[in-house]
């Protein structure tokens, strides 16, 4: 019995429910959610350790046999992502204490936060395509509430659009699952993979693959479907943006990674080439946005788009190096994006503006914020030995192996542009003549900096410990290269 596989979902679910009863007592909510997320981190570490020792773990929910019931599957990839999710959740909850405001805290903020973690962890762990849809919806429902929570005008306006986009993509998800069900007659992903292998991916399966790409691309914001992201991620307060930017889009990417390596790997000529082209276009659009704006939030938001492009490009190449690179990069990006959002959140709190032209000289009063931001920035760019390096290097190696030199050039140039966009924040914000900011004294900078430093610290450890991490990453890559491992583990043949 492997009930530990389901505990990362069950724990935040129970926590969220208990928090619903205590909406009056903010103190209890804070303490309880921090304790719960800490327990979640411990659980995830145990899960990673167990998967490392025993291989892929599965749980047949409700004791229904594998292809008929829902299976929860913890392979190394899912476990690592669950661990990262919990780490980020912890940092953002601590950050929220001093920045989200009493009004939102009283309105079930922490409970909804836990439900979002339920959705994200569940989406990573499930081995059933319809269950993936359900966890997506749990996650989206929580994100709708978080986006609208507080009810300021821009938030209401943007959440209307966000919900509309996601309702349409959910309908498309249901439609695509219906098509898939009519072709293979099963919903268990391992079983689907086995059955598709038998019919060898005819045209209809390619149609389904592209429909899935549209569905997950809408959630993950890849090139033609990213239009909603800059607006929606701009509206809510910083901790919520950090949460969305670090987790939500990555769930879409993870789903693309899972379906394109497990289900639709037979006819790569069409689907994966399409994926590669879209990835490169995503990078280019992201770079244009990141370089063009003078608004700190927008710059980081467009950096999300760039990172998505890089990861998807790694997936589209489908070889050992590029997939390991994508996994390295996705974990790195989740951590560092959350850290960057938290850091610019501090800057915005101090200066009261997003506009880079209106701030300067912060390094004198806030040296720690400045240098933490600097380290986070060069980690994101991938300057060795920081954490972005290994992932990008592996993706580039994969590109060389696949002979995709255009992709290589785009990624290398994009790194330069990312460096430029972040140094723009650093130089304009921290260098220059110090200015007086009226609200600066009331900001609890130390308390806000703590979670950001924690995340940057994790990212540094991740970067310097690449050698130690590599066995885990390569174990995570194995089932992606050879779906047989995943199928055997789930169906126990």
């Amino acid at each position: 019995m492997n009930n530990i596989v389901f505990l990362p979902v069950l724990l935040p679910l129970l926590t969220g429910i208990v928090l619903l009863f205590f909406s009056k007592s903010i103190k209890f909510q804070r303490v309880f959610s921090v304790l719960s997320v800490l327990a979640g981190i411990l659980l995830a570490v145990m899960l990673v350790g167990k998967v490392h020792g025993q291989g892929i773990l599965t749980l047949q929910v409700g004791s229904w046999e594998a292809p008929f019931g829902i299976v929860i599957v913890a392979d190394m990839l899912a476990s690592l992502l669950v661990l990262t999710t919990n780490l980020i959740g912890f940092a953002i909850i601590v950050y929220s204490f001093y920045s989200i405001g009493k009004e939102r805290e009283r309105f079930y903020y922490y409970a909804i936060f836990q439900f979002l973690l339920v959705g994200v962890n569940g989406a990573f762990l499930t081995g059933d395509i319809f269950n993936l849809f359900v966890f997506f919806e749990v996650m989206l429902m929580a994100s709708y509430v978080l986006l609208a929570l507080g009810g300021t005008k821009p938030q209401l306006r943007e959440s209307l659009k966000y919900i509309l986009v996601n309702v349409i993509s959910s309908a498309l998800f249901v439609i695509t699952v219906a098509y898939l069900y009519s072709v293979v007659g099963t919903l268990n992903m391992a079983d689907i993979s086995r059955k598709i292998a038998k019919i060898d991916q005819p045209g209809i399966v390619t149609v389904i693959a592209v429909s899935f790409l549209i569905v997950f691309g809408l959630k993950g914001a890849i090139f033609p479907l990213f239009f909603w992201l800059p607006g929606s991620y701009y509206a809510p307060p910083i901790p919520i943006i950090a949460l969305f930017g670090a987790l939500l889009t990555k769930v879409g990417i993870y789903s693309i990674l899972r379906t394109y390596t497990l289900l639709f790997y037979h006819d790569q000529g069409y689907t994966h080439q399409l994926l590669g082209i879209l990835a490169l276009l995503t990078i280019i659009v992201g770079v244009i946005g990141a370089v063009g704006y003078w608004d700190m939030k927008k710059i980081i938001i467009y950096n999300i788009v760039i990172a998505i492009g890089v990861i998807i490009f790694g997936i589209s190449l489908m070889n050992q190096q590029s997939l390991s690179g994508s996994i390295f990069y996705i974990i790195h990006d989740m951590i560092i994006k959350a850290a960057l959002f938290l850091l610019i959140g501090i800057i915005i709190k101090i200066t009261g503006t997003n506009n880079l032209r209106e701030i300067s000289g912060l390094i004198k009063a806030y040296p720690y914020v400045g240098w933490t931001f600097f380290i986070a920035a060069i980690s994101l760019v991938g300057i060795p030995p920081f954490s972005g390096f290994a992932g990008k290097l592996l993706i580039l190696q994969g590109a060389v192996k696949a002979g995709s030199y255009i992709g290589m050039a785009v990624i290398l140039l994009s790194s330069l542009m990312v460096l430029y966009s972040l140094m723009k924040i650093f130089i304009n914000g921290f260098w220059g003549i110090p200015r007086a900011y009226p609200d600066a004294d009331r900001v609890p900078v130390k308390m806000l900096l703590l979670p950001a430093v924690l995340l940057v610290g994790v990212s540094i450890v991740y970067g310097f410990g690449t050698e130690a991490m590599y066995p885990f990453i390569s174990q995570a890559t194995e089932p992606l290269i050879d779906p047989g491992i995943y199928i055997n583990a789930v169906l126990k043949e």
Partner: protein
Amino acid sequence: MEILMAVVIGILFMSATYLMLSKSILRIIIGTGLLSHGAHLLILTMGGLKRGSVPLLSEQANSYVDPLPQALILTAIVISFGVTSFFLVLAYRTYQEFGTDNMDRLRGKEANE
């Protein structure tokens, strides 16, 4: 029967698209409702239309219909019920706040109001 279902689903999708392209929030929400109805009917058709008895043990028939699409539809209905009701409440709040239900007037501007 499948052809009839295909036509019905097509009409639902068509009306949904038409409604969602209009400017009023309420029409858009009705459009999303029709869209999900279409999707549910599609699952039903894709899972195979009724050829056996109701999937209940008490029926004691030789063949039963596949219960899985029905379970999927029930789940999807519950989810779309939740999302639609949230959407409606949010639209109502937006209407109170902005005094309009015209999507054209709810455009985001670069500057944060």
